[in-house]
């Protein structure tokens, strides 16, 4: 962890602070100058400071590791509870219904759109990727579904039930985004 807490406010205190009656302007000023004053309709001044926070977590996938290692090999792994005859397309290493350990199984690399959306906005980390499509994928032989990205097609072309195929990143980043889906050959012609 580096730079977990840095307060920049006081370093700029020799210059007069910018004042604004617009909250968005105050936010912008903060990013550049570290401090600013918001003035409300009654003339009350509130002092704002920039207050950054950055953490590098040491994150283990722990019992989910086989799934993410599988993506790097071009495999989609789900889990199966034999007593419940239930296959999880998003793996759970213990069954939700009976609590027993599940076993790893390979899922087919093709499925269908169970639901979808096109995101025109996203949270800050993903804004630069917009617009992007999210898809919930259903697989033959699986009882639950998988959330993923749907690429190589536009908002107008997607429909519930569309056949899709899995694609894998050639350079794995060991994230869920190492797999995504695209329309199956011929699916866009319909």
């Amino acid at each position, binding site marked *: 962890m580096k730079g977990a807490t840095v307060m920049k406010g006081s370093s700029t205190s020799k210059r007069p602070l910018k004042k604004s009656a617009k909250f968005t302007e105050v936010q912008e000023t903060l990013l550049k100058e570290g401090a600013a004053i918001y003035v409300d309709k009654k003339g009350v001044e509130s002092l704002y400071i920039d207050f950054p926070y950055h953490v590098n977590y040491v994150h283990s996938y722990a019992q989910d590791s086989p799934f993410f290692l599988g993506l790097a090999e071009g495999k989609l792994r789900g889990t199966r509870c034999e007593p419940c005859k239930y296959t999880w397309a998003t793996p759970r290493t213990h069954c939700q219904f009976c609590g027993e350990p599940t076993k790893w199984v390979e899922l087919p690399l093709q499925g269908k759109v*169970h639901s979808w959306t096109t995101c025109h906005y996203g949270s800050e980390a993903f804004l630069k990727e917009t617009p992007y499509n999210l898809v919930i994928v259903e697989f033959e032989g699986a009882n639950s579904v998988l959330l993923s990205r749907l690429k190589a097609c536009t908002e107008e072309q997607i429909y519930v039930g569309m056949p899709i195929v899995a694609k894998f990143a050639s350079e794995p980043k060991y994230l869920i985004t190492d797999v995504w889906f695209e329309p199956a050959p011929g699916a866009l012609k319909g």
Partner: protein
Amino acid sequence: MPQASSTVKPPRDVFSGTATPASTKRSGRRVYVVAGGVTKFAKAHPDMDFRLMCKKAFDQARSEVPNLRLNDIDGSRISYFSDHFSRQLKASSMVLDYLGLNPRGSVRIEWGGATGGECFQAAWEAIASGRMDTCLAIGYETMSRVQTWKGNEFIALASDVNYDFPLGGFYSGYYALMVVRHIYEYVRRTKFANIKDEREAQKKAFEYAGRVMAMVSVKNHRNAMFNPYAQYPKNLNVEDVLKSEMVSYPLPREDICTMSDGAAATILCSEEKAKELTEDPILVKGVGCGTDTMRLADRPFGKVLLMPHEKASDYAQLEYPGVHSFRAGRAASIEAYNHAGITNPNKDLSFVELHDAYASSEIQTYEDMGLCRYGEGYGFVERGDPFLKGFDYGMKLPNAGATPVNPSGGLIACGHPVGATGLMQAVMAFWQLQHKVGERFGSEKLQVPNAKRGAIHSHAGTGSAVTVSILERVKP
């Protein structure tokens, strides 16, 4: 021609034992709400930090029960959702000392979007159990402390960070996924069942559902025009909503709530104490809470949890909850209705304040709460049931006033400072049932006539937890 979707059906018996919510096993003392207070919800309150916001809400509540001394409050339950927004861990302690509530007992409640509703029920438990006679339930959120898209990221951290967050980290996207399937199940397969081409049928279904969702947005924004505590009162019509920029298809901006700063407080008491403090205490007649899997993808495709006015044959073909309905909301409603002795929510409730973070989830929630059957949510809106009677929405609504939903304006128009939201609903319901909306809002427009019993509904991320509480007027 494209083919329709069909999920593999699991053996139904795997769900036995997972589908039965707690029922009538409850005892404990009767609990009353005696006071409520809220700050105006706003984009930001630069002149108030979280402690002062809570103080304002608390003081407003105390002004409603002038005979209650600070020392008479036995303890508190306090809620805020995110330590990321607060940037101050253990912030609850700073609220308690600011309010002068040390050294009395308290605990912080965090339950995602349902944080406020859960806080209310935690205070109920403190009284019902006999542990306290007077308990403050107070909550806040300060979301203005980061920019909107960073705020969306913080909220999305309340989704599975291995499997869900890295795909886009966007709650509007998750709710869009859920309503797309809802529209497919209930509009494409019914209203447009005779259209064979899958793409054409789905397009028509989305157009239709988009207009109905816009009607919900119009209702809530226009209601809020008479609520001085609301953040975004707007005189919108359906076209305005549909023209607002698309955020996550099929949800445009005006179908989605915003980030807010605000606080809300209620004071709960035992019967004996309530009688000392007010002539018009409001009884907490029932409480319920349900949960579901964090990941949408893990939700089963099983049987509907039935209410007394429904039959299994109503839903013979339905795979439930899938990703299209909120099983937690159903479970919470059943538990609360059982507790309150409600057999037909439409008849037995004068109004509902529910968690409409999205216009879509308001419609899905009508069905979960049994205000209409699964699949009838869109028709429920078109007929006008959830609208106020004698109120100008610019639409023909034959059933207006049947079961008013979100007379306050809901989250879409009041704002959604997460830890305060469920308590704001409690305050709105409290004033409705005391018939004091006119006094508090300066207008009678939003007062539901002769309000006798109301439900409040608080909902956490993608339906992973929901609380429902039933409040009832006891004064003749």
